[in-house]
Every structure is written in C-alpha cells, then in structure tokens.
C-alpha cells in the first residue's frame, strides 16, 4: 500500500527511476523529494519505469508532470515507460499528455530518442 522508489544511474549520464506500488496523494511527496535529488545537468534524460506501478491517482500525475517540467526547464527530458493497464487508463483520461512522453516499451523509447538525436545532430 505504498511506494518504493529505486533510482539507478549509469556512468554515461542515464538515470532510470523505478516506481513500485502506488503513486497517490500519500506517496507523491516522497516521489517529489527523491526525483529532485537527481541532478539535471548530470542526467539530462530521466526515464521513469512504470512497469511495477499498480496505481496512479491525479496527485501522482501532478508529481510526474512537475518532474517532467523541471527536467525540460533544465534543458533535459523526463520520459515514462511501461505503463500498466490501470495506469494507462489514467493517462488516457488525461488526453493532454503529449504522445512523446509515455512509451509502451523501451524499444519504442529508443527509437524516439534516436530520431531526436538525428534531428539535433
């Protein structure tokens, strides 16, 4: 009935955040605090892995959006991957979410990042 947050970092500036459990009114503040510890300069691309997120309420959505905005304000990106059915349902209600920020699979995300890099490079 709670949230576990695992933050993994690679030597080459990739950061992956795994959310396990529920991101809701109760647990969102903990997510806010932990995601804020990831330096944007060092980790411009932050991937939030939702594979084990069972429940997302609007308080959680708000936290994800805040983190996404913080990343993009700092010139980086925060991407979401592997939403499960209940979580996908919530994203579907929130139609305003750009399709370029939630990816079904890591492959789909890789293709997006590759395309982006080709454009900017």
């Amino acid at each position, binding site marked *: 009935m709670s949230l576990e947050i695992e933050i993994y970092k690679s030597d080459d500036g990739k950061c992956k955040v795994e959310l396990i459990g529920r991101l809701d009114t109760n647990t969102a503040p903990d997510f806010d605090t932990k995601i804020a510890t990831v330096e944007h300069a060092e980790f411009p691309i932050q991937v939030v892995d939702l594979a084990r997120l069972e429940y997302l*309420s609007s308080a959680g959505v708000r936290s994800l959006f805040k983190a996404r905005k913080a990343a993009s304000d700092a010139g980086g990106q925060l991407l979401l991957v592997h939403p499960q059915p209940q979580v996908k349902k919530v994203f579907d209600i*929130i139609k305003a979410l750009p399709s370029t920020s939630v990816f079904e699979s890591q492959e789909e995300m890789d293709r997006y990042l590759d395309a982006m890099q080709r454009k900017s490079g």
Partner: protein
Amino acid sequence: MTERFVLRNQLPEVESFQRRLEALLRGYAFSDDLIHDLSLISEEMLVNIVHYGYPESEAGEREIKVVLAIDEARRICLEIRDDAIPFNPLAAEERDIDDDRLGGWGIPMLKTLTDHVEYARVGSENVLTLERSERDS
C-alpha cells in the same frame, strides 16, 4: 446490501477508506478494473473535500459520510456527503486542452469512470451520488 462509513477530514482516513472499499468489493467478486476505478474516484473526491472543502484549522474535526450500496443487478452506488463549503464538481469548468496547470484531473476522472453522477446541495451538505457497473473490457 448497504454499508456506511464515516471518515474524519484528514488524509490517512481517505487511504484507509480506500483499502476497506477495495476489500469489500473484492469480497463481492467485482473485477480488478472496477475496484480500481471506484477506489481511484474515491481518492479523487475525498482528497478534494479534505483539501478544499474545510478550513485547515478544522482538519480531522469534521465528518464525511459515505454510503456504498450494491443492488441485485450488481450496480454500485456510492454516496459521498460532506458539510464543507458548497461545491458542485459537475458544474466546475471543463479543463481545456491548452490548460497548462499541472493538476485538475480529478473531475475528468470522475466523469469518465462512472456511469452516472449527480450532485445536490441538501441543507448544509454536498451530496455526490455516483453509479458504476462492470464494463466490457
């Protein structure tokens, strides 16, 4: 069957209500999908009441009443009653696409995840009644 719950206006009560609601519906063999949706709407509506309905100074001192009813057709009716400031979520302005506020999702969820919703101000109370049955997936 009808079950009554009384919650104080503070967040931990919302969470424990969700757990009880989920367990109860699971006992009636409703689908994970339906249980998820009702739990989610409950969080959205009850947290809003706690956050916006009562002054900070009265936190934990007021009561929110919830009635859960399941009829023979397995239609679920959830009634949420509070004596907070008048607020009709159905009359609240629709969020528009360009809206760049980070929040404001609770009410769209209420509308999408229920079959029918009604609001009434009855005396000093907000009465929100919502219905939901199993959906084909």
